[in-house]
């Protein structure tokens, strides 16, 4: 309990903020919170990991049945089962990250109202935890890919280039939604619906080439579409169309890019603006 008799200087206390308390502390706290949450889910119970894998696998099994036996979309797409599983797992990350983050700040009310720490850690820890889960699930996906005869490609190494824009987008939405949900508690409810819409508005269970013209423009405006499409090319099927080919030039993708940038800017701006007042509004 020794206190260094250092010559302490008065420093202005800046109040609560998104990043307050130093970068070092921010990252340590972010890491620690994500890791503990991750450990809790996966190693806290015997079936932890099995359960978390059950969800995408079951969904995968159902969709696979429906779209290969009933609708037969799958039969036109090379490596459809693997592509489907890969897409489900990838979208699962987005859904878990944003869906978990929406209510995260409100849910952590106890610590937000009673202690000072960088507020941004809360939604970002949810996204980071989802990223860890994705990492674990990707092991299974790669096993499936090899098992279903996808030939290993050097482009697999480009997976981080898929994750980066997806992760940034997820984090930005997590910030935006968690901050808005403090003010408007129905954001969480609305987001469930929007996320489901996005699930169908992204080429996950269907390939882009069967989408009719008008709807195609809408789906192309979804920032997730080019990410998922590029992922398909790099990871599963090098002969699939790239986002640029599908869109027939860069112009249709501008809307997606603008939305992407808009969400990122809004996420940072809204969270920063709300952070100092979050404790009061809870």
């Amino acid at each position, binding site marked *: *309990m*020794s206190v260094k008799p250092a010559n302490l200087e008065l*420093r202005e206390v800046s109040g609560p903020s998104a990043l307050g308390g130093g970068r070092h502390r921010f990252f340590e706290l972010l890491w620690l919170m994500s890791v503990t949450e991750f450990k809790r889910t996966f190693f806290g119970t015997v079936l932890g990991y099995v359960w978390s894998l059950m969800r995408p696998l079951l969904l995968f099994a159902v969709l696979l049945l429906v779209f290969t036996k009933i609708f037969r979309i799958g039969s036109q797409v090379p490596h459809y089962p693997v592509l489907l599983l890969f897409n489900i797992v990838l979208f699962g990350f987005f859904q878990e990250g944003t869906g978990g983050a929406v209510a995260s700040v409100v849910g952590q009310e106890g610590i937000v109202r009673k202690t*000072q720490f960088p507020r941004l850690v809360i939604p970002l820890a949810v996204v980071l935890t989802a990223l860890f889960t994705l990492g674990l699930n990707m092991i299974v996906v790669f096993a499936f890919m090899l098992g279903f005869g996808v030939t290993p490609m050097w482009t697999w190494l480009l997976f981080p280039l898929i994750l980066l824009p997806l992760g940034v987008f997820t984090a930005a939405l997590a910030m935006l939604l968690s901050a808005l949900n403090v003010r*408007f508690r129905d954001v969480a409810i609305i987001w469930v619906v929007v996320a489901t819409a996005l699930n169908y508005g992204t080429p996950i269970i269907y390939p882009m080439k069967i989408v009719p013209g008008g709807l195609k423009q809408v789906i192309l405006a979804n920032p997730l579409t080019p990410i998922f499409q590029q992922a398909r090319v790099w990871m599963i099927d090098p002969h699939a169309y790239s986002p640029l080919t599908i869109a027939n030039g860069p112009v249709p993708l501008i809307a997606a890019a603008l939305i992407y940038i808009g969400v990122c800017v809004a996420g940072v701006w809204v969270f920063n603006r709300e952070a100092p007042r979050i404790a009061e509004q809870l």
Partner: protein
Amino acid sequence: MTTHAPPQVAIEVSGVEKTFRIPTQRVDSLKERLTTFSQPGYRELHALRDLSFEVERGEFFGIVGRNGSGKSTLLKILASIYAADAGRVRMAGRLAPFIELGVGFNNELTARENVELNGVMMGLTRRDARSRLGAVLEFAELEEFVDLKLKNYSSGMLVRLAFSMMIQSDAEILLIDEVLAVGDASFQQKCADVFYEIRDSSRTVVFVTHDMSAVEQYCHRAMLLHDGGIRAMGPADEVARSYLRLNFEQAPGEGDADMGGMADITLLDVWLEDGGGERITNVEKGAELRFGAIFEAHRHVDGPSFGFAFDNADGVEVTGFGISLPEGAPDAVEPGQRIRLGGEIENRLEPGRYVTKCWVHREHNLANLVLHSPHVLDFVVYGKEGAGVVALDHHIAASVKDGAAVGDGISVEGQR
């Protein structure tokens, strides 16, 4: 932004204001926001008004005030949980904010993991937090439970861990909000020792409490907040007296109790005495305990009865008593009359902290409440802890007899 200032000031608060805008109509959903066209109205609550003070390095500084006086808001601004609307706060050194003990503990994690997480939350590095684990657990006397999840801890164990965490955090400035009323008697003693130690060290403590005996015991200086402003500031005992005066002077409607206007009868003073008639705030288990209170009537009240009850730290009402005016005299009080209660209480209280509640009824009818104050006096009973809530006397003896029938080989006698 760093400025050079005399190093002896640890906390400098200048011109801090905080106003809460309380919407007259709460709009907390997007749906309502979109469907409500009128601008929602606000009522302004001035929690802090142009507050300025300084706390010197090494000081044990108390902040007291009634509920709603702004002390929690101030503490939260000091702790960077709330942003001030105006003014600035400057501090010298690292701060360990403890608005409440055990904040940020995760029940699903073990003590080991929680110490690390909590340490980082308080601004330690992970390595630092881990290196303190031993010291934290040792002080909390929880070494054997290091790998037990907190959900399996008792509340006493949690409090010990949290308090220990705070003590070991090594921050130069500690913010402490009402934590003394926790733990068993021996741990309380340990906490008291630490408080004395901190009091005499170069660490600075801001201590918010309702407990005037604690203020007098530990604080070098204290500040009384009232309506968001400083009502009194100075030596701890003087401020404690101002607080008590403020508490008893005021009609209960303005503070703790929810009754409108000035009560017909108010409590002027309430205290405990030892056998020698000396006022006390701590009493040894089983020692003679005398009780006193003075009320003043402001209007004519028929058939007044005066009640007091003691709650223990768990919020359990341990005992209570109701007193009426003596027979023979008129069963009514007139404006300006004072009523004095006094006498002995059989002290069967177990060690711990007790809160005294007070109420007054008219016409001996429980439904006619004249006064109700849930928190008029705090006291601590110390001594060896027994089982249960109260320590009842017993006269039970065991005896062994020879040669008799097997059946009454051992008899247990009860007297009285």
